[in-house]
């Protein structure tokens, strides 16, 4: 009987320690990144990073993404919706974390479309047609070319531009920053340097809204 009680208490202590440990760790992480947001803003936004939204926007929504990541594609319309609901207040910063096999090839294609001014259209096309060029979490390069041609992108030019060593360097930099910021899954969101405590669309919306309230105290 006594053993039962000791055993039961130990189980409870272990579970409590686990829960306390996780909330403590997450608090520490949030503190660390909030601090880094001020000290090392460049870890979140590099000069090469593509930014969507007004220059004056005070809320930076940094997204570490992978063109082959299903959740990134699923979140894309949601992120647009949040931005449309708060015109001029949010800047979307795209950072690369091509964790899927073969995905860096697609980042190179995407970066090459900058020269044609088709970056955001191409990103949109990639997300929308993702299931056509991925198989079992691997990105298959051959399948994207006809899709891009149809989307009105000059494919021949991309094939030339995408091998620019500057693009490879930029991907390495983004991956290094992802590592520094502890991004191990995509999409990895930071709102003004604050990470999501738990992943989800609701949590992302709440975090964005809290930053909007902090930076735009007067409604409209």
């Amino acid at each position, binding site marked *: 009987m006594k*053993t*039962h009680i*000791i*055993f039961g208490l*130990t*189980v409870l202590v*272990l579970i409590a*320690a*686990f829960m306390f*440990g*996780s909330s403590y*760790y*997450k608090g520490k992480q949030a503190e660390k990144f909030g601090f880094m947001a001020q000290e090392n803003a460049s870890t979140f936004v590099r000069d090469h990073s593509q930014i969507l939204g007004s220059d004056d926007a005070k809320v930076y929504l940094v997204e570490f993404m992978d063109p082959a990541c299903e959740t990134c594609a699923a979140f894309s319309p949601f992120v647009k919706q949040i931005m449309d609901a708060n015109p001029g207040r949010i800047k979307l910063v795209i950072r690369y974390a091509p964790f899927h096999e073969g995905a860096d090839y697609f980042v190179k294609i995407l970066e090459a479309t900058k020269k044609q001014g088709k970056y955001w259209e191409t990103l949109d096309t990639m997300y929308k047609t993702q299931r056509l060029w991925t198989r079992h979490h691997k990105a298959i390069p051959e399948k994207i070319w006809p899709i891009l041609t149809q989307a009105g992108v000059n494919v021949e030019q991309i094939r030339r531009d995408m091998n620019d060593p500057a693009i490879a360097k930029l991907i390495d930099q983004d991956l290094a920053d992802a590592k520094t910021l*502890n991004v*191990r*899954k995509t999409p990895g969101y930071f709102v003004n340097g604050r990470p999501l405590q738990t992943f989800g669309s609701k949590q992302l919306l709440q975090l964005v809204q809290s930053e909007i309230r902090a930076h735009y105290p007067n409604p409209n």
Partner: protein
Amino acid sequence: MTHSNQKPSNLTILFLCWLVAGVSAMGSLFFSYVMGFAPCVLCWYQRIFLFPLVIILAVGLFPFDKNVVKYALPLAIAGWLTALYHNLLYAGIIPESIQPCSQGVSCTEEYIELFGFLSIPMLSLLSFSTITALLIILSRRISK
């Protein structure tokens, strides 16, 4: 078997054994779900040997069953061997080229180094060593 108040009872040893397994299992879950470390292939094998130990040892406690050693020890030894291999790989004593985990997370990926020497594979080796040692002590006391 003489019962002495000085020495811990067999039940206590088994309980400690379960505690080590339980804390290790919790710790491994903490690393992957809270700290976000992706487990490598060898870590998975060690977990396969560790997680059942938590259940089997707990079952052996209520009521105390001396046969528990027979079922738990093979798992502990298998886990210990895997952990040993992982540590040799991690330390570079076994070259990476012959390791089985070329895809996904590298088994030599360094996540944490507590106090400068306690890596995750080392923690695993320590816990499997403790569990194995306790089970061997228990089996000797029982067979006396």
